[in-house]
């Protein structure tokens, strides 16, 4: 039997997996958008709008926004955990990070929603 203290926390496997999965999603998105930009989708408003409002882009843009938020939360939270010792400041930074990630994510989704 595994003998370890249960302290109500998960042990990082989910975060590890999420960080990798969301990273791959964003890397793929970056390559797709960068390639499209070299093909001139950013040359005019009409082309840019047509590109971003196409069905595949609506699908993966949303995935990318969700991935970005989740990835940023884990990464930034780990950074605070490593460098900020006073519990009060750390907790405040965690809360501010969650709020700003959710706010930015919601804002980005609204932009995509309007397309």
């Amino acid at each position, binding site marked *: 039997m595994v003998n370890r203290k249960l302290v109500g926390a998960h042990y990082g496997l989910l975060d590890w997996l999420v960080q990798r999965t969301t990273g791959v999603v964003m890397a793929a998105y970056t390559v797709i958008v960068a390639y499209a930009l070299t093909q001139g989708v950013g040359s005019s408003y009409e082309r840019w709008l047509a590109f971003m409002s196409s069905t595949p882009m609506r699908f993966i843009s949303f995935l990318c926004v969700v991935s*970005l938020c989740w990835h940023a939360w884990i990464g930034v939270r780990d950074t605070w955990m490593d460098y900020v010792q006073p519990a009060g400041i750390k907790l405040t930074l965690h809360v501010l990070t969650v709020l700003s990630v959710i706010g930015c994510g919601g804002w*980005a989704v609204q*932009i995509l929603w309007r397309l």
Partner: protein
Amino acid sequence: MAAMSTTSKKRPKYLNLIKIKLPIAGIASILHRVSGVGLFLMLPLLVWLLELSLRSPESFEAMKQVAAHPLLKLILIGLLWALLHHFCMGIRILLIDMHIGVDRLQASSSAKMVLAVSLPLTLIVGAKLW
């Protein structure tokens, strides 16, 4: 006695950022963090630019004007570097997760590769956009 003194050496409880001296893989690694935090802090700016680019033909032009401001150009090139570095380091991390390039020599040469790709690519793409 020498062995005793090394085993009883006091280890730091957390990293002292000023005293620590990093190998190349460590530099690439800390830059992964710096670039990630930078992208996170500038996220509202990026979402705002995305919004301008998609709202209307007028705001599309306005976005171009905003992005053409020298200060913003500087920030955007910094973010471009952050994205490229984070991207390359991310691939390196995924490869190491798959047990590719784990030993020290390979790990340090892959860290050099990350820098050798992300820095020139930033300059090339940055120069084109500027």
